């Protein structure tokens, strides 16, 4: 097991180097000069331009800029935002809990609906339920998040008035963050109405963000379940006279869940990508909105370091998934 783990970690190193190169290169490949971009319509006098170039280190040869960047990142220095002048890591730490909280609820939504729906579709294979579920899943998978989010806001918040339009909590609640998770903080303060408000603000964005993972999980559960239901041990279990619920719930599901767990892990990337749009629509103060704002502001330092930090998180989650996979499926460890 330890060897397996070390192996996996070793594999991450080239990925990590690749990501630093990508993050560094992407920002520099963007057309337009960052200094001129910052100056806006006013333009900037040539002398001032040179001065600023030096101040930001853009006058150095490109490899030297890269070396400097890697050195800084390796020592935990992710730079300082050009626009807000705050350390990037500090902003990231402030905003990340919001993204994590939203992703968590989106995932819960996707799993609680996706897994049972997938199982049911597999058991009733070929039925109208199966057909319509798979059709709906395809629609969900192809759903443009931006449009979907606005549609839900206009219907549920605008027309019906059931849910708040956007934000994390009602403005009447003024809670200084403790953990940064609004649902937990409101409970720590002992304020039930604040907790309810935080939950109600989570409903729509969780649905929007969870829609694509929901579709993927439902489809994956269904196909894994179908495969397992055809296995010999399931037939044996049935032949033993076990109840259908026990055959499906214990013998089949446990084995079918192995690929599903991997799928869920891989959805973390999808969640973070989806968070960019979801957070922007719902004014959710997380890292997705932060990245979008920074791109528009041409805040290259935040874009570059933000990319890297997000990639690090996706890698860490994938590592955890690999380990979990090995735990629930002993065959992997041996391989």
């Amino acid at each position, binding site marked *: 097991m330890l060897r397996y783990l070390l192996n996996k970690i070793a594999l991450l190193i080239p990925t990590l180097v690749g990501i630093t190169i990508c993050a560094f290169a992407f920002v520099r490949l963007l057309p337009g000069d960052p200094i001129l971009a910052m100056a806006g319509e006013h333009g900037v006098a040539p002398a*001032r331009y040179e001065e600023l170039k030096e101040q930001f280190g853009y006058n150095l040869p490109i490899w030297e800029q890269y070396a400097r960047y890697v050195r800084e990142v390796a020592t935990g220095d992710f730079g300082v935002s050009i626009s807000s002048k705050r350390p990037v890591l500090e902003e990231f730490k402030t905003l990340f809990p919001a993204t994590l909280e939203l992703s968590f609820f989106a995932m819960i939504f996707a799993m609680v609906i996706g897994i049972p729906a997938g199982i049911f579709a597999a058991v009733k294979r070929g039925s109208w339920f199966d057909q319509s579920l798979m059709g709906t899943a395809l629609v969900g998978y192809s759903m443009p998040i931006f449009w979907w989010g606005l549609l839900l806001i206009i219907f549920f918040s605008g027309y019906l008035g059931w849910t708040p339009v956007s934000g994390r909590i009602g403005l009447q609640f003024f809670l200084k963050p403790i953990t940064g998770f609004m649902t937990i903080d409101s409970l720590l303060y002992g304020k039930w109405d604040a907790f309810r408000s935080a939950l109600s603000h989570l409903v729509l964005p969780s649905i929007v963000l969870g829609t694509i993972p929901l579709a993927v999980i439902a489809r994956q559960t269904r196909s894994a379940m179908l495969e397992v239901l055809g296995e010999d041990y399931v037939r044996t279990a049935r032949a033993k006279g076990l109840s259908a619920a026990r055959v499906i719930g214990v013998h089949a599901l446990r084995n079918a869940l192995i690929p599903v767990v991997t799928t869920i892990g891989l959805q973390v990337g999808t969640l973070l990508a989806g968070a960019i749009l979801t957070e922007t629509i719902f004014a959710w103060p997380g890292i997705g909105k932060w990245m979008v*704002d920074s791109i528009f502001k041409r805040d290259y330092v935040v874009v570059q370091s933000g990319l890297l930090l997000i990639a690090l998180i996706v890698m860490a989650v994938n590592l955890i998934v690999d380990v979990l996979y090995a735990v629930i499926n002993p065959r992997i460890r041996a391989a």
Partner: protein
Amino acid sequence: MKKTMAFAAALLAASVLSGMASAKTLVYCSEASPANFDPGTTTGGNDFDASSRTVYSRLVEFKHGGTEIEPGLADKWEISDDGLVYTFHLHPGVKFQTTDYFKPTRDLNADDVVFSFDRQFNKQNPWNGDKYLPNLTWDYYTGMDMPKYVAKWEKVDDLTVKLTLTEPNAPMLANLGMDFASIVSKEYADQLEKEGKMADFSTKPIGTGPFQFVDYQLDSVIRYAANPDYFKGKEKIDDLVFAITPDATARIQKVLAGECDIAPYPNPADIATIKANKDVTLLDQAGLNIGYMSYNTTIPPLDKPEVRHALNQAIDREALIKSLFQDAGATPAENLIPPTMWSWNKDVKTDTYNPEAAKKVLADAGLKEIQLWAADRVRPYNPNFQRAAELIQADWAKVGVKANIVNYEWTKYREEGKKKDRPGAFQIGWTGDNGDPDNFFATLFACSAIGVSNYSSWCDKDFEDLIQKAKKTSDQAERTKLYEQAQVIFAKEAPAFLLAHSQVYAVVRNNVTGFKMDPLGIHRFDGVDKSE
């Protein structure tokens, strides 16, 4: 007697309770997070709404809803006859805000004013550089050419400040009403420097403005309370909240749902919905901007005014504006400056659509092909450069001119466009900074702006003389005359095709009173009230 006492007690209790209940909160759905709260260091309109217009005041202010200058922290001022020395007399007894992080021990004085500007250019000032915040660029101070014009700031006595210029520059007064010219507290700066917490100056602001800062949850909510010591009197609103909502449609839904009271910049597509709703009002105003298209006046045959006029006449401007701005609408531009700005010449008209006349002139000039530039960016004065280019291309095709559209990414676009030898017609525009005509005429068409922001490479001696003279004249009536003449020359020479001044919108709930649209694009909450 007992009864009366009980009644009085009940009345008292009721009035106390109602007093508590009537703590008025105004919620503004802002469009973006502020970079920070030090208006000297930031450049965005949303930064200024959240800092300079709420927390701070300036020596002079723009009239609410206009571009004229009125007294601010300075009750009055004198300008010397040679236009070089400005003497400001400060309002006595102005208090800086008292918060849980700063308790002022003295009133505003000349030291604060001198410090507010000194920190923006004096490299010896510890607040100028990295010691305060990394990579400071003081964009507006340099962008408005302050280093070139300001010789020195001096304290005469506690309530008198003297500004000496290097040469006469009438727009200076308007510059001092701009956000970067907000007056900060030297006492607070000194305290933070001593405590080694200089960066707090940009995150926990202290000013003399109508509202004081309470809290900011990053990218989410900013909270302010009315400044009880505000020198123009405490505001009627007790609490002001900025709910940061970047998506335009979500912002409007929030106003409609009553989750916020005011929201700026609706999507053009939502304007019909807003107009149909009876709980809210749509406010609009011609923005302080201009969309135009610069011809390079140095390259034949575009060096001839008649050719430029002909190209203008070939464009069906009305259809173009309708197609570009749709429901949002825009005011067709007759002059470079918008009609809301003083000195706008109502007698000047730009070219009208006349393809027949244009065709002949262009054929005679032998103009068969032209480059037509389009950027990839949405700007307030032009929502779609590419679409505009395609429509103009079609119009010019009808008069026998083939337009080749040139595309670049926004930054690269301007870099290429400002080169002296850039060929053809270049779409661009401008949003004003300080409401002074100089900020349009000199910034965009002065001879010295060639290669910087004079995209027409146009240098006309008569025009130049007029705008330079206007810049050096302090008397506004005199300046108005000069700019009116300059507009006549501009229309005659046609260095550019003038498109439109776009409309700026905000949505306000009907129980809100006193909120005004501002031509400068700022959102102010002083004087705003709300009924239940």
